[in-house]
C-alpha cells in the first residue's frame, strides 16, 4: 500500500516537473511577443497563432503527414503477415524471433540511420550489387530521396507495429476459424469477416504508435532525405535557434501536440466503437 502511494507520488512528481511544467512554459511563451534580446517578453498576443495559417506551414504539415502515412502503410503491409506467422510459431521460436527483432534496438537509432546511408549510397551495398549483377550501368539514386526516408522510418518503427499485432493474433482463437470453415466460409471470407475484425484493435494501436513518432523524427528525413524537405520539426528548430522567434516556435510545437492528442482521442473512440459493436475483443478468449 505504502509502496503504491510512493510509486504514484513519484510518477506524479516526475510528470509534473518534466511534462506538465515544460508544456505550461511552452504555452506561456506562445502567447508572448518575440524579443530577440530576452527570447520573449510581454505584452501577451495571439499573433503567433495567426501566422500558422501561412500556406508554407500547411505544406510542411502535409509533407510530414504524407511521409508518416506512407511509413505506417508499409509497416502495416510488412508487419501484418509477419505478426500472423509469428503468432502461429511455437512459443519458444516466437520468443526467439521477437528477441531478434528487438536486438537492433540496443544500437542507437541515429547510428543505425548512418548505417542505412552506407547501404543506400551510390557506392553502397545495393548499388554495388546491382552493378555487379549487370542490372544497371550507373548507380541508381536511392539515398537522399523520399524512398530513403520511408525506408529508414519503416526500419526504425516496424517493431512497434509488429508487437501489438502479435498480441492481437495471439488472442485470436483458432476455433473461431475452424467454425467459420465448417460453416462454409472461404479463405477470403474468413479473413475479412473473422481475422481482420478481431485484429483491428492491434492494427489501430500499431498504426498509431508508428504514425505519431514518424511525424516527429525529422532527423531521419534530414539524414536520409538530404534535408531537402521542410518538415514541421525543422521549422520548429529554425524558429527557436535561427530566427529566434520563440513564441512562434512554441505555437507550432503546441499545434503539433494538439494534433497528436486529437489522433489519440480518435484512436480511443475507434477502439471503444469496435469493442462495443462486436464485443469480440475479450469475450473471444
Amino acid at each position, binding site marked *: 500500500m505504502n509502496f503504491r502511494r510512493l510509486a504514484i507520488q513519484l510518477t506524479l512528481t516526475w510528470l509534473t516537473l518534466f511534462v506538465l511544467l515544460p508544456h505550461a512554459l511552452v504555452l506561456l511563451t506562445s502567447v508572448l511577443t518575440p524579443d530577440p534580446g530576452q527570447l520573449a517578453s510581454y505584452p501577451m498576443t495571439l499573433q503567433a497563432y495567426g501566422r500558422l495559417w501561412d500556406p508554407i506551414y500547411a505544406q510542411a504539415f502535409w509533407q510530414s503527414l504524407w511521409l508518416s502515412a506512407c511509413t505506417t502503410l508499409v509497416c502495416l503491409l510488412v508487419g501484418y503477415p509477419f505478426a500472423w506467422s509469428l503468432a502461429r510459431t511455437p512459443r519458444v521460436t516466437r520468443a526467439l524471433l521477437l528477441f531478434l527483432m528487438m536486438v537492433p534496438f540496443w544500437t542507437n537509432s541515429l547510428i543505425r540511420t548512418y548505417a542505412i546511408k552506407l547501404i543506400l549510397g551510390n557506392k553502397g551495398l545495393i548499388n554495388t550489387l546491382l552493378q555487379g549483377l549487370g542490372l544497371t550501368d550507373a548507380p541508381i*539514386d536511392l539515398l537522399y530521396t523520399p524512398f530513403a526516408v520511408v525506408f529508414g522510418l519503416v526500419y526504425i518503427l516496424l517493431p512497434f507495429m509488429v508487437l501489438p499485432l502479435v498480441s492481437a493474433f495471439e488472442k485470436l482463437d483458432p476455433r473461431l476459424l475452424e467454425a467459420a470453415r465448417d460453416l462454409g466460409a472461404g479463405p477470403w471470407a474468413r479473413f475479412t469477416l473473422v481475422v481482420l475484425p478481431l485484429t483491428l484493435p492491434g492494427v489501430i494501436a500499431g498504426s498509431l504508435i508508428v504514425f505519431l513518432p514518424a511525424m516527429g523524427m525529422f532527423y531521419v528525413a534530414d539524414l536520409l532525405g538530404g534535408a531537402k524537405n521542410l518538415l514541421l520539426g525543422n521549422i520548429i528548430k529554425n524558429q527557436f535557434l535561427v530566427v529566434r522567434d520563440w513564441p512562434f516556435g512554441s505555437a507550432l510545437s503546441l499545434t503539433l501536440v494538439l494534433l497528436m492528442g486529437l489522433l489519440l482521442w480518435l484512436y480511443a473512440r475507434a477502439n471503444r466503437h469496435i469493442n462495443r459493436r462486436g464485443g469480440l475483443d475479450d469475450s473471444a478468449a
Partner: protein
Amino acid sequence: MPLRSLLATLCLTLASQGYAAEKVVVYNWAEYIPEGVLEAFTAETGIEVEYSTYDNNETMVAKLQLQGGKGYDVVVPSTYLVSRMRKEGLIQPIDKALLPHYKHLDPALLDKPYDPGNQYSVPYLWGSTAIGVDGSVVDANSIHSWADLWDPKWKGQLLLIDDVREVFHMAYKINGHSTNTQDPAEIEQAYTTLKRLMPNVRVFNADAPREPFLAGDVALGMLWSGEASMAQAENPNIVYVYPDEGAGFWIDNFVIPAGAEHVANAHKFIDFMLRPEVAKQAVEAIGYATPNLSARALLDASLRNDPIIFPPSEVVQAGEFQEDIGDAAMTLMNGYWEQLKSGQ
C-alpha cells in the same frame, strides 16, 4: 518522508559541485580541439577543464541567453555572432595584459568590423567556404565560379551547406552584392537567383559535408576548407576551388561570457591556446587555418603552403567575412529559405 530525503540528497549533490578545485568551463565546437591539449593545460596549471561541445552556433547562444550569460568561462562563436553577442551584452572585454601570447596573431586577421580592436574576442581558427570537386568524376578545371553550380547539367547532383547565410552568400556574390547586405531588395533578388539552383541540389549537409563526397554520392558542391583538407587526406581526387566571385570566410573566436565565474582562468586557458606549439597542433588535428603566425612558421612545409588551409592573400581579398546582419534581415532571409526548401 522519502520525497524530502530525495530532495536533501539532490541539494547535497548540487552543493558539492560548487566547491570544486580551480577550474575553467569551456564550451567549444565538437571535434575542435587537438587531443591531449586539455590534459596538458591541467597538468601545467592545476586548473581542471570542464569541457562540453556544441555543433551549432545558435544552440550555444540560446543556451547562454537562457542562463543570463552564466555557466561558461570560454566559448567559441563564429565571426558574425561575436558582434551580436557583444551588442546584446553577453560577453565581456578581454584583458590583453593577461595574454602574453597574443603578439603571435596575424594583424591581417585582427581588428575586423565584427569586433574593432578585438576588445571582446581572440581568433582561434579560421577557414573558408568554397567549391568542392571530385576530380575523378567532374573535370576540376571546368569549375571556377559559383555560377558554374547553376548549370542545368548538374540536375539533382549538388551538395549545399545546410545554412541560410552560406547558401545566400553564393547568390549575393553572383549578383555583385555584399554577403552582409540588409537590403530587402537585394535579399529578394538573391532568393530569385537561388530558386533556379534548387533543382540541382541532391543533399543539404551541415555536420560533415565531406562525407557525401567521400561516399561517392556527390561530386560537386559547397565545402569548408577544413573538411576539404580532411577529405583530401582520404581521397586525393577531391579538389577545392576558390570561386572567382569570392569565397566566404569566417573566424572562430574565443570569448568570455559576461557572467563567467572563472575569468582569470579563462584568460589562462585562452593564452595557453595561443602558444605557437598548441596552435600548431590545432592546424594539424583539425585542418583549419591558424591566425597564429609563429605557429604557422613551425608547421611542416606541406601544411604551411597548402592553399586549402592557407589561401593566397588575393583569394582572401576577393572573399568576404560574415558579419551580424540583425534580426530583421535574418528573419527575412529565413522566410525565403523556408520557401526555397519547400519548393516555392
